[in-house]
């Protein structure tokens, strides 16, 4: 086994676009799955972890998302970014699992156990782009008002409806709707270069 040519091949693949990698994956090349994993596993995992607040469950969900993606390949590149596809899939599976749990109290207990940070294992290329994007989005969220950000995050990470949010925050529904919508529009303004 010539490890140099193996490295060359995977070096090439890791420079390909998501679309190219997806085609390679559909053609049955498992190296493509590896590269896509290196690119997006952290994102999928952190979203699953944020919603489920349990590392083991988050890892299980990450595995489910990537294997589902490998087996079914329902992503259509002309219809949106691969990032958004994976994120949407992850979020909807995670919210489903969240809803099937018995109480909010368990969630809060799990979350408080989770506050220590995990170690990370960066590899060169995707650290640059993933980190850059993370920073951009953090900056964009910082521009929002506290209310706008809070409402968006409650809706996104906890799967709460806007009436549930209004009840929890004890504000009128109309106010919650305005905060959420204005928040999303402000994000769009800040991030317009990231979405093309």
């Amino acid at each position, binding site marked *: 086994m010539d490890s140099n040519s193996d490295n060359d091949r995977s070096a090439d693949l890791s420079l390909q676009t998501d679309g190219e990698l997806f085609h390679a994956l559909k053609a049955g090349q498992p190296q493509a799955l590896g590269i896509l994993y290196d690119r997006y596993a952290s994102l999928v995992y952190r979203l699953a972890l944020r919603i489920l607040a349990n590392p083991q469950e988050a890892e299980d969900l990450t595995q489910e998302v990537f294997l589902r993606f490998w*087996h079914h390949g329902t*992503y259509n590149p002309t219809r949106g970014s691969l990032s958004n596809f994976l994120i949407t899939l992850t979020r909807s599976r995670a919210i489903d699992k969240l809803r099937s749990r018995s109480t909010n109290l368990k969630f809060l207990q799990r979350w408080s156990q989770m506050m220590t940070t995990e170690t990370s294992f960066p590899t060169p290329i995707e650290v640059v782009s993933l980190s850059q994007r993370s920073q951009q989005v953090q900056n964009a969220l910082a521009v929002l008002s506290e209310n706008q950000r809070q409402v968006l995050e409650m809706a996104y990470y906890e799967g709460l409806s806007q009436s549930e949010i209004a009840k929890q925050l004890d504000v009128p529904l109309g106010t919650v709707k305005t905060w959420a919508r204005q928040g999303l*529009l402000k994000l769009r303004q800040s991030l317009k270069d990231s979405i093309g």
Partner: protein
Amino acid sequence: MSLPPESLEELTAGYVLGDLSSEEAEEFGRLLIEDPSLAIEVNRLQEVLGLIPYALPEVEPSPRLRSAILEAAPAAGERNQTPKRSLLQSRIVGGVAALLALALGLENYRSRQDLTTTQARVAEQKQLIAVLRQDLTTRQVQVAEQKELIAMLRQPSIHLVSLEGADLAPAASGSFVMNPSKPGAFLALQNLPSLPTGQVYQLYSVVNDKKIAWGQFNTSPNGTVLVKLPVPSKAEVTTLIVTLEQSPTSTRSVGPTVMTTETTTEL
């Protein structure tokens, strides 16, 4: 038709966030028809929403997860398209498929960005508008039923049958979905004519020329149906028909057939 751009933007954001009231939903539907480029904005906002998780703390899963996944994926050349999944995609027809896909949240719809278009792109936009409109209308139907249907569609062994319109309703199409181990079946139909009072649609299954009655239903104002029906005892899903009946129904004769299953069933 002009709305101040700020309120149009807000309405679009509301659609993407899923918080439109029924009046807002109706208005948004109208706006979509008038201005197809709204669909592009919808897709852009959906992408923005999908960027939010990037701001989460940058944690990684354990290294063993990578090897677990790559080992579980079959070796090169053996990657399979699970038959159930591709059958599901080929059997669901037109707008109903898009409707369910939107509900599943698995796909982003977006129209191409270049509006100086060929006919194909215009047609795609029209379809997108039809899909978004149908999505809005469906939100006015019971949300609980949708969620249940979604959960059912995620099960590995479901029974899925397509129906198409017969002479009385040639444009009608739809799907029947059932999980054999659970009670109830779902019927999702579109382009069925609305009925005057005194008439109703009914679902029958046909076994050896014998018709077994399932439930009765009517359409929403724009011709769609999404209902959950109890499964009659001893029912088999072979051929299904939808008939037009007088209400209250005469128990003797069966009314004219409005829709039937395609000649081959699967799953």
